[in-house]
């Protein structure tokens, strides 16, 4: 897979920094809560990007592929919880969107994917294994939806290394 990977972005082998972020006005999700199965962290610049090419909408369509490989997906942007709620409702998203809103971009900074100048996160993917270790990361050009092939390959590699070879029906 390509690419443009700013030096700052955490790479494979690094321990995934812990975080706790609101998913809704009254629900907080921590990385610790997701331990025990692979986690896909998808940082994206903003809610409400154009529809058909939208990365979150695409991932929503292929959740069963991720779940078939035992993984949980969370989206993260600097948008607030109410913005996320409206976005998730409109796009019928079936996975949590976390608000890296206060302190703004704090989690993105810890993963090395915050863009100071624009005040948004990179379009960045991290696949974290059940033990909390980053196994694959990728930073895509802001305007290019990276798709899911890299994520699926990373999840398959994790499944192969742990002997779990679940397949999707």
């Amino acid at each position, binding site marked *: 897979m390509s690419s443009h990977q700013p030096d700052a972005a955490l790479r494979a082998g690094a321990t995934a920094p812990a975080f706790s972020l609101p998913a809704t006005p009254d629900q907080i999700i921590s990385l610790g809560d997701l331990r025990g199965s692979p986690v896909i962290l998808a940082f994206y610049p903003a809610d409400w990007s154009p*529809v058909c090419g939208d990365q979150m909408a695409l991932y929503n369509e292929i959740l069963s592929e991720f779940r078939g490989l035992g993984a949980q997906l969370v989206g993260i942007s600097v948008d607030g919880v109410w913005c996320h709620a409206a976005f998730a409702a409109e796009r*019928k998203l079936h996975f949590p969107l976390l608000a890296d809103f206060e302190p703004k971009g704090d989690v993105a900074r810890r993963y090395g994917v915050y863009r100071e100048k624009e005040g948004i996160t990179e379009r960045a993917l991290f696949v974290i294994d059940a033990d909390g270790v980053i196994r694959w990361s990728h930073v895509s050009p802001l305007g290019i939806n*990276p*798709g*899911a092939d890299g994520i699926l390959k990373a999840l398959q590699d994790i499944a192969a290394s742990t002997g779990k070879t679940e397949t*999707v029906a």
Partner: protein
Amino acid sequence: MSRLSIPVSASDHAQGADNAAVTLVEYGDYQCPHCGEAYPILKAVQRTMGDGLRFVFRNFPLTEMHPHALRAAEFAEMAAGAGLFWQAHDLLYENQEALGERDLLAYGHRLGLPSDVVAGAFDGRFDQKIRDDFRGGVRSGVNGTPTLFINGLRYDGPRDADSLIMILRQAEALSSAAGGG
């Protein structure tokens, strides 16, 4: 760079010669407005490129977003059984605003297909083929609809006819220089 993980084969819907120098694969959704915008452009590109281009369409229905996308894909797959895939494909893109089940039955009638055959398309018999297209697309890096692959490589550039023709001509020249078809 994302690559087409499922090679083009006889099970694909293709227009143009098998040995064309350039193969353009579209992963599309019949209800996607961006695919609708691309439809006349791709037609124009095909006309300009002539025999040098093979065009392949694969299903990538975004069913959470587009409630009629799966039925429309089933309809086209059914028509393929009667050798009318491209006629169905074109009808669907030319009538994107009307893709309800009754509309599809009417299009079937227009194509001269028996109504029981058309209705049978919606019982799930084509879903495996559609799902296979979709899953292959996901693994190839399809990142929305339409996603185009030119000779196996995902194309992320502009989708106006001039840009497409230019890049396809380049691919054609490269392929000829390499002595391959």
